[in-house]
């Protein structure tokens, strides 16, 4: 296989990787932004940036955390660039967003509860559960100590326990 063929094969594989992960990138962007249109913009920018930076991805197995990191940064960049207003999620139409809709009332409640988690709890939780990032990777991405990551993840789940019908447990110091 010559260099040109290798290049096209790699390019094709990378595109397939983006196609495969795009749905979860969109979901992650949505949980970050809580706005479908912003999420779509963020993912488009992410795909462009990922394409331009594809040589940085040495290990395809690391594509998911790598792309989630780009989504997060593009989301921050978009807010910085457009100076999008931040809003209280209680007032936001997002809670009635059809994107959250499901026939399962309990699942809908859980989605709404996740929407209402403070950013500091929601973001690491989604990075972990949807993105598959380890607590160490989350700490590196959010520039938090391991202890802080554990505490935030614990508190996120502890808040959601009641929605799931479980008793919350004693908070951690």
């Amino acid at each position: 296989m010559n260099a040109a063929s290798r290049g096209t094969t790699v390019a094709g594989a990378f595109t397939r990787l983006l196609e495969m992960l795009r749905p979860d990138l969109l979901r992650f962007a949505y949980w970050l932004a809580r706005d479908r249109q912003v999420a779509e913009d963020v993912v488009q920018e992410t795909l462009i940036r990922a394409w331009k930076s594809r040589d940085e991805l040495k290990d395809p197995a690391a594509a998911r955390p790598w792309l989630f990191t780009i989504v997060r940064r593009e989301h921050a960049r978009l807010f910085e660039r457009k100076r999008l207003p931040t809003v209280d999620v209680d007032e936001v139409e997002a809670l009635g967003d059809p994107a959250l809709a499901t026939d399962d009332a309990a699942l809908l409640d859980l989605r709404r509860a996740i929407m209402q988690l403070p950013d500091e709890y929601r973001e690491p939780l989604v990075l972990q559960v949807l993105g598959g990032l380890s607590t160490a990777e989350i700490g590196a991405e959010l520039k938090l100590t391991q202890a802080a990551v554990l505490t935030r993840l614990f508190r996120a789940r502890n808040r959601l326990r009641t929605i799931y019908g479980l008793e919350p447990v004693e908070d951690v110091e």
Partner: protein
Amino acid sequence: MSAAAPECRQARLYIGADPHHLPADIAAHVEACAACRRFREETLSLDGRLHAALDLPLAHFRRAAVVRTRRFALAASVVFAMIVAGGFWLFRPSTALAGEVVAHVEEEADSWNSRDNLPATQVAEIMRTAGAQFDSPYPVVYGYPCPFKGHRVAHLVVLTPDGTTMTVMLIPHEHVRRRTEFARDGMSGVLLPAGKGSVALLTRDGAIADSTADEIVSRVHW
């Protein structure tokens, strides 16, 4: 589950933070402590629901016109980059088209859950909007004139005689030279030339029979 001992509080911090991956000393404690074991089981159960909650269906992520333009721009930039990389897409247009068809169908995954026949008038309206004519041999249970690569295309789901659903996309502005089969993300499909355009068929239920594909294409006119 309150007023826990210090070692239990520590264990619950780790369990609550990451119930799937516990350090060895925490795992040993959980093994020996019924209350912490129950807490872990509850948290693992909660996590199953968390996965389901975060795994949103993407059917509602249809883009507004201005955004579709941007998507098209993205596609163009990717195509350009691939041309620079070696002309891959120039020589494999059907592969790219198949990928876009799959991505589109995945965004409307709920379309495969429809079972009620669409009224003929509604199907006719979809065809009119999408600039196609199609006398479907099978009942149409879902249909929409979807935005696709800068145009409207008829995106239908039909109920086949064996009870499975099959997506039929009529794409008048994309010509493919030859029949191309593809499989991705649990779907199998085929792109078929149809006059000046093409037809994409997709199913989650095995391969699409040649006779089925041929019959559908024979009923498509632009």
